C-alpha cells in the first residue's frame, strides 16, 4: 500500500533528517516506527503526506506517486491518508462532531463545509464512527471539554472518517497515561484490522510497541537499522537503534504476555539510577 524508495530529507538548517529510507508497508499491515528523538520518525511520517517536502526519493500510495504530485493531485492523495497526532491537533473551540466531520473536508465542497451542511451519509458515518470509538455521548461537546484519551479518540474518528487506505500515526500515546495509552493502541489495532488499513505508528514506548505491533522498523539518525518482527527486539537490536543502555528488562518483556495484565513497561527510574551508577 505504501512504498518508500530512497527517501531523503535535508532541512534548510542543513540537518539531514532522513538519509535514504526504503520501506514497504503492504495493505492491512500496521508497523511501528521506533527510534531515539531526532532519528527522523516524525519527518518520515510527514514526508509521506508531504506536510514536509522530501528532498529526494519517491513515495507511492498504491500505484500513485505522492512525490511530484500537483497540488490538486496531492489533496486527492491526502484524502486517502488519515493522520493522527501526538497532541491530538483537534480544533479546540469546535464541537466533537465538527472535528470528526473535518475528516471529510477533502471530499466536500467549500460552501458545504462553511455552512456545516455535510452530506447526510457523512453525518451518518460520523455517528457510526463516534459510536465505534465510544464517544457517542460526547457528540455535542466542545473538543476542549474532553480528557486526553477522549480527544485522541476524536482524532482517530476524524482520521477514520476520511475512509483512508493508510493511517499515519505520530506518537499517539505520548501525551496519555499508561492505561489510556494501551486502550488507544488497542483501538488503533482493532480499527486497522476491521478495515484492513495499513498504518505507520511512530512510537516512543518500546514496550508498548512490542505489545501491540507485529512489525517494527527501527530508525537511527535517518537510516533504517532494523526491520523485523517485534519479538526480534532484543538487547543487541535495541542497542543498535538507541545506543548503549541496559536493555535486559525491556527486551525481556518482549517474551512475556502481550497483554495489559503483564506489567510490561519497565519503570524507568531504576534503569536510570543504574545507568547513573555505572
Amino acid at each position, binding site marked *: 500500500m505504501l512504498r518508500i524508495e530512497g527517501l531523503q530529507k535535508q532541512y534548510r538548517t542543513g540537518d539531514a533528517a532522513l538519509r535514504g529510507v526504503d520501506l514497504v508497508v503492504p495493505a492491512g499491515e500496521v508497523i511501528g516506527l521506533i527510534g531515539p528523538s531526532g532519528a527522523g520518525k516524525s519527518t518520515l511520517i510527514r514526508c509521506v*503526506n508531504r*506536510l514536509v517536502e522530501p528532498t529526494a526519493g519517491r513515495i507511492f500510495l498504491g500505484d500513485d506517486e505522492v512525490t511530484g504530485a500537483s497540488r490538486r493531485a*496531492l*489533496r*486527492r*492523495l*491526502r*484524502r486517502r*491518508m*488519515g*493522520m493522527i*497526532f501526538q*497532541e*491530538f*491537533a*483537534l*480544533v*479546540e*473551540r*469546535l464541537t466533537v462532531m*465538527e472535528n470528526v466531520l*473535518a*475528516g*471529510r*473536508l*477533502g*471530499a466536500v465542497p*467549500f460552501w458545504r*463545509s*462553511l455552512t456545516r451542511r455535510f452530506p447526510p451519509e457523512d453525518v451518518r458515518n460520523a455517528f457510526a464512527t463516534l459510536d465505534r470509538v465510544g464517544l457517542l455521548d460526547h457528540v455535542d461537546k466542545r473538543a476542549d471539554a474532553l480528557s486526553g484519551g477522549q480527544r485522541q479518540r476524536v*482524532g482517530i474518528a*476524524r482520521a477514520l472518517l*476520511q475512509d483512508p487506505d493508510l493511517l*499515519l500515526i505520530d506518537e499517539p500515546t505520548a501525551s496519555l497515561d499508561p492505561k489510556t495509552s494501551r486502550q488507544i493502541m488497542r483501538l488503533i489495532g482493532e480499527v486497522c484490522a476491521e478495515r484492513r488499513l495499513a498504518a505507520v505508528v511512530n512510537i516512543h514506548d518500546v514496550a508498548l510497541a512490542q505489545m501491540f505491533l507485529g512489525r517494527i522498523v527501527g530508525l537511527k539518525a535517518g537510516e533504517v537499522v532494523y526491520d523485523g518482527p517485534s519479538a526480534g527486539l532484543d538487547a543487541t537490536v535495541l542497542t543498535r537503534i538507541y545506543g548503549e543502555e541496559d536493555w535486559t528488562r525491556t527486551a525481556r518483556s518482549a517474551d512475556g504476555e502481550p497483554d495489559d495484565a503483564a506489567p510490561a513497561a519497565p519503570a524507568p527510574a531504576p534503569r536510570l539510577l543504574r545507568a547513573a551508577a555505572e
Partner: protein
Amino acid sequence: MPVSSAADGTPVWRRTTRRRALLAWFAWLMLVALVVAAWNEMTRDTIWAFVWDAPGQAADIGTRMLPPRWSYAGELLRPLWDTLAIATLGTLLALPIAVPVAVLAARNTTPSATLVRPLALLIIVASRSINSLIWALLLVTVLGPGVLAGIVAIALRSVGFMGKLIYEAIEEIDPAPVEAMQATGASALQVMDYGIVPQVMPAFAGITVFRWDINIRESAVVGLVGAGGIGLSLEASLNTLAWSQVSLILLVILATVLVSEWVSAKVRHAII
C-alpha cells in the same frame, strides 16, 4: 560569560560582565542628559508669568464651568447619537478592510512573504501612523464637513489598529490543527475556516469591541475639526466661551465612555 576565578581558584559569578555594566551606566547617563536638555529646550520659550498665573486662571474657568448648564442637555442628544454612529459605523467599515489585510500580513497565512506581506504591513503602518484627528482634517476638506468624514476618518485609523492586532493573533495560533486540516486534503479556504478562524475568533471579537470602545472617544474628538458628532458642539461652546456648556459636554462624554467600557468589558468576558 561573567564567570571568572578568584585568586584562590574558586569560581566567581556576576550577572553581567564589567563591559556590559559600564554600557548600562553610560545608557542611564545619556538618559539623564537627555532629560536635562529637553527641560532646557522646553523652558526657553515658556513665558513664566503665564505659568505662575495658571492656578488663578484655572480656578476662574472652574467657577465659570460650574454649575453645568443642565438645560443644554436636550440639544446634546442628537450630536451624541451622531458620535455613537460615527464610532460604530467607522468600526464596522474598518472590519472588511482590516481582516483581509491581517490575513495577508500574518506570516503563516500570507500568500507571499516577500511581496504581499510588506505591502499589507505598509497599509497597517500608514493607517496607524496618522491620528484620526488628522485623517478627519484631511477628509473634511475632501468630503466636506459632516458625519461621513468622521466615519471614514475613524475607519481609516481603525484598519491599522485592528489589522495589526488581528494579524498578531493569527500568527500566535497553534499550528497543529492547521496541519491536521491540511492532512485531510482540505483546500486552503477550508483550512482557514476550520483550522484558523475558530482559533482567532475570541481575539477577533475582543479586538473589535476594544476598538469600538476607543472609537467612541475618538469620534468625540473628530467633531472638533468639523467631522460631526458631539465634538462639533464642544467646539461651538468653546468658541463662544460658554464654559458651563463645555463642562456639561465633558460630563456627557465621560458618561458615554464609562458605558462603552462597561459594554466592551462585558462582551469580551462573554466571548472568552
